[in-house]
C-alpha cells in the first residue's frame, strides 16, 4: 500500500495513460480522457460528461425530459384513473356483462320513450329512426375535462328520464340512411 502514495507514482497520469506531469492534469482533463476524447478540455463541462455517461439509461432519460413531457404523462395517468372510476360507476348501472361489451365497442344502446339511441364514448349521439340515423351534438359542458364514460353516463340518465330535454338541447349534425345491421353496442 505504501508504494501507491510515494511521490514518484502518479495514479492519475497512469490511469489516463498520459505522459504529462502531475501538475498538468486537472480534474477536467481526466474527465475528458475518460470520455474517450469526444470533447476537448475547453468544451468539456460537468453536464456533458454526465449526459454522455448516463445516455441509454431509461430512468436517466426520463429525468432529462422536458418538464412539459413529464407533466403530460401525469395528466394521461390521471385521465386513465378517472376513466376507470367512471367505468366502475357505469358498472353499477349496466352490469358486468354489458360493461364488457361497452369496453370492447365504446358504445352504449339506450331506449328513450320516443327513439332509441347509441351513445358512443367519442363522437355524436346517434338517434336511431326507422329509416335513418341522426347525429346529435349534446354533452356535458366542458366535456373534455371529464372522462369519456362520465359523459356516457350523463347522456344515458338524461335520455332515459328526460328525453325531450335532451332533444331540445341537442343540435342535429346530419343524417344518413339506417343500415340494415347496426354496430354492436352494450345495452340494458
Amino acid at each position, binding site marked *: 500500500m505504501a508504494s501507491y502514495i510515494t511521490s514518484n507514482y502518479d495514479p492519475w497520469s497512469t490511469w489516463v495513460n498520459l505522459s504529462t506531469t502531475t501538475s498538468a492534469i486537472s480534474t477536467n482533463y481526466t474527465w475528458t480522457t475518460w470520455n474517450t476524447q469526444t470533447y476537448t478540455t475547453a468544451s468539456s463541462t460537468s453536464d456533458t460528461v454526465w449526459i454522455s455517461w448516463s445516455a441509454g439509461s431509461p430512468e436517466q432519460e426520463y429525468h432529462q425530459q422536458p418538464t412539459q413531457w413529464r407533466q403530460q404523462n401525469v395528466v394521461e395517468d*390521471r385521465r386513465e*384513473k*378517472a*376513466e*376507470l*372510476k*367512471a367505468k*366502475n*360507476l357505469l358498472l*353499477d*348501472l*349496466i*352490469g358486468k356483462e354489458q360493461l364488457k361489451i361497452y369496453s370492447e365497442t365504446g358504445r352504449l344502446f339506450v331506449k328513450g320513450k320516443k327513439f332509441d339511441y347509441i351513445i358512443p364514448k367519442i363522437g355524436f349521439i346517434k338517434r336511431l329512426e326507422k329509416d335513418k340515423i341522426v347525429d346529435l*351534438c*349534446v*354533452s*356535458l*359542458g*366542458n366535456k373534455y*375535462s*371529464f*372522462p369519456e364514460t*362520465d359523459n356516457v*353516463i*350523463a347522456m*344515458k*340518465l*338524461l335520455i*332515459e*328520464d*328526460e328525453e325531450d330535454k*335532451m332533444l331540445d*338541447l*341537442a*343540435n342535429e*349534425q346530419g343524417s344518413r340512411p339506417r343500415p340494415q345491421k347496426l354496430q354492436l353496442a352494450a345495452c*340494458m
Partner: protein
Amino acid sequence: MGELRILDNTGDTKVIWDKNNSDEVEAAEEQFETLIDKGFTAYKVKKDGKKGRKITSFDQDAGKIIMIPKIVGG
C-alpha cells in the same frame, strides 16, 4: 347507507351517509343543494342501477344519487 356520486374530472366524488346519522344526512343534503344551485341535475338510481329518475330535493332514503353537471348542446 346512501351515496351521492358527483361526476367530475376524477371520474366522480363519492359522499356517503347513514340515514341514522343526522350529521351525515345534513352534510349530504347540504352538498346536494349546493350542487343543484350550481346547475347540476340529480338522478336517483336503484342500487342495481337500471333506470334513473330525476329528483329536485334530497332524498335520504335514496340508495344512490348521481349528480350530473350542466349539459349543453353543441
